[in-house]
């Protein structure tokens, strides 16, 4: 249970007057961030791939519309399987298709893959090292629906699983480019997904940016602070870097779209440069995600800069409007900037 709300369950609330903030709910679109957007990058990239590779099929557990897989379902219906709301057979069946030589892309929300279908992913998919690609919407804190839909620990869950490749994409470029790359990778993949109108972030800072498996990339250089970020937090870190630049703080951002296998060489090289505060930033609990993976990497190699983590607390998070929650849990650009300043 969400302890903070539990304590106040029997306290009546005042009805606020004036402007009311709505829960930005399921259709959690991160569009209003000041970046250009691309519509359904995953669905369109998958259709492009399916046209060139007969083995590619798509499956969803009653969430095709909400994972952009409806693009495949509409354009190539013969390549799409509606599995109904049954996440366990979604994964088992994907494993079966993979055994018969297909490359299945299975979609649901991140919570339902990581929690309900975990055993099936572990044994039917990962232990057999099958090329099943599990692509999941609503990663971390990207909905105001409360813990039932907030996948705050998905990366921690899957990091413990041998053979898995884990992806936390930042934007439309990452998503569109990773689709053929993960299909070509002969093994299981779990990727977080941003859907709907997805911002284009990385190419604004690095026009020649290309997603690569197992590679972290410097998106912005800076001499005072190194932020090592993944997913939407790379976007927030880049925005925070702009804010901090106004205060004369020079922030570098290293984007780590692949959480496992981690690009330890780049991380050690960058974190080993003297004189920078090293901060990790992730849309995930502090437990077992990017931050702890980086911390372990640094410590094992004897690289010990001043190190801080920006991540979600080890709690079940509240329900409410998404912008309020990002503010509350420190994921906005302003909060990222403020935290970094406090550590300097």
């Amino acid at each position, binding site marked *: *249970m*969400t*302890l903070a*709300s*539990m304590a*106040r*369950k*029997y306290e*009546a*609330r005042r*009805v*606020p007057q004036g402007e*009311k*903030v*709505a*829960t930005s*709910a*399921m259709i959690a679109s991160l569009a209003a961030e000041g970046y250009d957007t691309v519509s359904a990058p995953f669905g369109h990239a998958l259709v492009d791939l399916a046209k060139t590779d007969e083995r590619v099929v798509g499956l*969803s557990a*009653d*969430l*095709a*519309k*909400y994972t952009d897989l*409806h693009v495949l379902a509409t354009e190539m219906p013969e390549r799409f399987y*509606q599995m*109904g*709301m*049954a*996440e*366990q*057979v979604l994964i088992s069946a994907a494993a079966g298709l993979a055994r018969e030589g297909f490359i299945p892309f299975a979609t649901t929300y991140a*919570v*339902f893959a990581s*929690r*309900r279908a975990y055993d099936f992913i572990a044994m039917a998919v990962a232990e057999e090292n099958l090329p099943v690609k599990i692509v999941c919407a609503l990663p971390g804190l990207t909905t*105001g*629906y*409360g*813990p*039932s*839909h907030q996948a705050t620990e998905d990366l921690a869950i899957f990091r413990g699983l041998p053979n898995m490749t884990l992806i936390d994409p930042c934007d439309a470029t990452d998503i569109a480019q990773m689709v053929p790359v993960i299909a070509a990778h002969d093994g299981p993949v779990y990727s977080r997904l941003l859907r709907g109108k997805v911002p284009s972030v990385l190419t604004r800072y690095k026009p020649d940016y290309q997603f690569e498996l197992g590679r972290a990339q410097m998106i912005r250089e800076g001499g005072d602070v190194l932020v090592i970020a993944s997913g939407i937090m790379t976007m927030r870190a880049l925005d925070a870097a702009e804010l901090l630049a106004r205060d004369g703080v020079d922030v570098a951002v290293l984007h780590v779209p692949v959480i496992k296998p981690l690009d330890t060489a780049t991380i050690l090289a960058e974190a080993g440069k003297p004189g920078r505060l090293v901060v990790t930033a992730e849309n995930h609990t502090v437990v077992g995600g990017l931050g702890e993976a980086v911390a372990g990497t640094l410590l094992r190699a004897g690289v010990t800069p001043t190190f801080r983590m920006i991540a979600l607390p080890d709690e079940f998070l509240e*329900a*409410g*409007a998404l912008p*309020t929650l990002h503010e509350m849990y420190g994921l906005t650009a302003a909060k990222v900037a403020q935290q970094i300043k406090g550590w300097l």
Partner: protein
Amino acid sequence: MGEVQGQGYIGQALGVADVLAAAYFHALTHDPKHPEWEGRDRFLLSIGHYAIALYAVLMEAGILPEDELETYGMDDSRMPMSGMASYTPGMEITGGSLGHGLGIAVGMAMGLQRKGNPAFVYNLMSDGELGEGSTWEAVMSAVQHRLGNLICLVDFNDQQADGKSTAALAQGDERGKWEAFGWHAQRVNGNDLDAVVAAFDAARAVTEAKPRVIIFDTTMCKGVPFLEAREITHFVRVEADEWSKALAVLEEGKPS
């Protein structure tokens, strides 16, 4: 509530309203002043997204204050979009991860029997949840443990997130499935209040120690013809100027 958010699960709420009305104002024993009273019949909302419907009923039943309905889905509200036990008086469980309610209901029914408490456990679930394996584990478990104090209510609106339930996993004889597992099963028109009330009575009157299910065929957006006629999806769109029109239609249709 829906108007405040400009959205909400309005179609589901209108469809299931008759079932909830019969549950709270005919079938259930409860004490609005003491939502956690030990003698109450337990009512589990497995389908968290239907919370909007339950909030309205909890308000009518005197458990939630009417003015707070306006906070639905807002920051610091006691009425989040997806129902949670930790937020709302009268909400027994945290739903939303679908396919949980019936299993929890099995355990509560077992617990009540152990305590010698004669209360019933009701679990309200959806046709989408008929697809979850966990539902069928609970179905078998309830028979094994002879849970005559368990009544499962299924809102069969033939809708789920991607389309019709009868085009997905609910393609069989849904009532026959439950019967084959050993349940006392009924299937009735969930928008015919007399039939709904009679089904609740029949379910409670079964003397054998077996669990009971009522499958309610319901119509999304029931009672607002211009919404019923719309293309029905999991999220029914309602334009800003339509909320008051819908309310007016509902007001007109109220039995006097």
